[in-house]
């Protein structure tokens, strides 16, 4: 299990600060285009579907499916205690999200399995959007 207090932690930007503020309260929010309604991830200034500048941050379900995953046995930094699970999660709202799967037995992992956000607190300011099997 990764000790998230020891890993390179996010340094929020002006664009991403609302996301991290919401995460700190245990809420997963995504940008949604004000023109075409498409959700996007990662945060971008313009819509990745229609280039609109209009967007709002909206709370999403936190539910999705396990698009795919890997169990990592050779970590880039010692703070990532192996084995850990790196995954692409497909959110109900559409976007793909790179994350870690936590609190889940590795033998139960399966492509397309339902997952849900399960925040892991790294420190007072940063609450990480890890996921677990539902």
């Amino acid at each position, binding site marked *: 299990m990764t000790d998230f207090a020891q890993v390179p*932690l996010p340094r929020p930007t002006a664009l991403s600060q609302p996301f991290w503020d919401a995460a700190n309260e245990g809420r997963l929010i995504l940008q949604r285009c004000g023109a075409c309604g498409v959700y996007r991830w990662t945060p971008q200034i313009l819509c990745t579907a229609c280039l609109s500048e209009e967007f709002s941050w909206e709370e999403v379900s936190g539910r999705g499916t396990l*698009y795919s995953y890997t169990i990592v046995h050779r970590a880039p930094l010692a703070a990532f205690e192996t084995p850990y699970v790196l995954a692409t999660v497909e959110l109900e709202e559409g976007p793909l999200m*790179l994350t870690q799967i936590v609190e889940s037995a590795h033998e139960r992992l399966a492509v397309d399995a339902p997952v849900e956000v399960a925040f892991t607190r790294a420190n007072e300011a940063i609450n990480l959007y890890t996921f677990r099997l539902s």
Partner: protein
Amino acid sequence: MNGDRDIAIVGVHATRQQRKSGRTLVSMWRESILGALDDAGIPIEEVDGYISYMFPAGNGMGWDDGAIAEQFGRPMAFTAQTSGAKAVLLAGSVIRAGLAKVVIIPAAGAQSLAGDMATYTRPTFEFTEWTGSMTPAQYGIMARRHMHDYGTTIEQMADIALNSHLNAAVNPQAVRYGQEPQTRETILNGRMIADPLTQPMCSIVNDGASCIVVTSAERAKDCRHDPVWVIGGACETHGNSYFEAPSLRMLGTRDLMIDGFRRAGVRHDDVDIVMCYDHFAHGPIVQFETLGFCEPGEGGDYVPQAIRPDGVHPSSMDGGNMAYSHNMIPYNFKQIEVVKQMRNVVEDLCPGWREGVHTYDRSICRKVRDPKLSVGCGPLTDARHAFTILAKD
């Protein structure tokens, strides 16, 4: 470039590829350029086009187009930043448009000093760095999805890696040459990096440089070797590797890739060599599907047999990214290996290789029989695709 034989690769050179070489980027970069121009028989004074990624970073700021002109001590008519197949296609367009006459495409990398793992695929980015993402893990995610969607097996992927390792075992220039031999079993039982990918199913990490010289058919007449014609290709940029979540979206560009063959008037069945981009063991499977050599889902059965030196579309005859060289920007090597195979200048363990005499016995030979039409890929990953179609007379 729609089947025309008006643009040619006339010079290629690769420096010694090795781990922890102790050499500087600039030194290897210089050697690769002078070597490729010597191979072409073109004096450096004729070079008026330069295409390369911003490596080597000589002044810490990268070598931008201004710094390149300063280095050569005179103006450059055309500069741009890319590498491999895309750079060759761009050079052809530039020469045809009259913007430059002789374009060099150097690529130098020295990444093994930083350790055993590539660092450039781990950007300082707030949505990836905390996850423990790194290159093999990203591609492990894609490999597993391909296995799920199409029933691709770990044994099929191991056989892809085995082809690269067997070829490197008879290529004295390969980084892994002379190391312990690999079998399907040693690959499957290798050190697990990011499952399903074991260490022998991943790219190696080393130093080295390479350079390609591209010019017009008219200038090629006076060059040292017969020209290798650039008769077609295609490219597409699909996304931002290592920043965004890995997926199999590259299969979505299939139609555009296949159109590249149609424009050149080339049937897939007529292609001999397909130097694909074997960055990880599943890579060639997905690439053959993306390029249209087989349908999505057929690659697992088709590719392991096809890419052997005696197969219908040999690949990675040099040992590829997994066993010849991954110097951070290995795209040029796919073009270079095609050129060497088509020129019949392939160093292996056959006693007569210097005279172009090969045994086609795989225990000592990695030569493809008489290739006339070839595909050189790279980059060809989840997010960036390019390939050339190369031909000889």
